[in-house]
């Protein structure tokens, strides 16, 4: 039963080759979506282009439903799939700092790589800034490790916190997503600007 490449017997090179192939798919999908353009991405925060929301929530739902179906049919052991560990305040403050970085730079790290891969110089500067940010964090770690490791809740799941089954939570998420897609389509009409696709 999957996941297959987490067992200690699996060969390291197979795991790394899989990572490379999955990365190719990831980079391809981001670029096709238009995430190689900062002006398109930033549209999310000004309402003129909501591609980010549509792609992001469609992808979440496909992976969420897909993994639960695979688990239901006994093909995937979800207990073996990594669940992010929750550190309450670091997750919130980290997210707030990331949001500020998003509107300053117009990229998140993944979309920065996407834009760099097709030759955008601004994305190169973004990634250089990112390297600097990771380096600053590493050097400052002794000073901030207390806060960075505070409020640890383990691999907490949101549906368990709300006391509902994964299936019910997924259904609620789908309904919320459809509502947001509808709003997004309306926002794009309301905040429409002249088409800039040719300039990107």
């Amino acid at each position, binding site marked *: 039963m999957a996941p297959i*490449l987490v067992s200690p017997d699996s060969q*390291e090179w197979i795991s*790394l080759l899989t*990572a*490379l192939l*999955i990365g*190719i798919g*990831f*980079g*391809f999908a*981001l*670029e*096709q*979506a238009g995430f190689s353009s900062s*002006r398109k991405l930033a549209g999310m*925060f*000004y309402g003129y282009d909501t591609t980010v929301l*549509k792609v992001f929530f469609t992808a*979440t739902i*496909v992976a*969420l439903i*897909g993994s639960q179906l695979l688990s239901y049919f006994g093909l995937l052991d979800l207990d073996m799939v*990594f*669940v992010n560990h*929750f*550190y309450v305040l670091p*997750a919130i403050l*980290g*997210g*707030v*700092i*990331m*949001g*500020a*970085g998003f*509107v*300053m*730079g*117009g990229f*998140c*790290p993944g979309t*920065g*790589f996407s*834009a*760099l*891969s*097709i*030759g*955008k110089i601004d994305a190169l*500067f973004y990634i250089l*800034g*990112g*390297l600097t*940010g*990771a380096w600053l964090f*590493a050097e400052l770690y002794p000073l901030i*490790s207390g806060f960075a490791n505070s409020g640890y809740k383990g*691999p907490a799941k*949101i549906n368990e*916190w709300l006391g509902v089954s994964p299936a019910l939570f997924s259904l609620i998420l789908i309904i919320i997503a459809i509502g947001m897609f509808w709003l997004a389509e309306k926002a794009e009409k309301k905040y429409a600007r002249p088409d800039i696709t040719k300039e990107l």
Partner: protein
Amino acid sequence: MKRKPYMNPYLAGTLLGLVLLSAMFFSGRGLGASGGIKYCVVSVVGAISENHVQASPYYGQYFEEGKKPLKTWLSFEVLGMLLGGFISGALSGRLGIKIERSPKISNKRRLFFAFLGGLFFVFGAQLARGCTSGAALSGMAVLSTAGFVTMVAIFGSGYLFAWFFRKNWI
């Protein structure tokens, strides 16, 4: 070559979701991007000063038992991302060296804010244990509370700060 239009967002989202699902299925994990940046920094610092790395509990953890930070799943995945993006750009006629910016701002201003944005984003991602890919997208797909909280914090803060940086975009 003529530029092709971008893929329909719902179709691109489905494709991205299937890529994430394959990562979960084959490797038992989600996607990531900021982690690759971290491994790159850790590796460079390790090459420059072994003493500095050994004295630091932060850097030290990535070199325990002879581990190599660049020989990791995330580093290879990020390398793949650059390849995949290049293939997509080549097939769609979107390759080209350029600085993308609003016509209202200078190249210098665009590059300065791009650098600063990257610095903030990746610093924040270290605190939150992941960025939009590793924490928000992959986290939400496994129903992790951290994923949902990080997603709301990233986008909420983006809207909060959007007014201050509007000149860069609109």
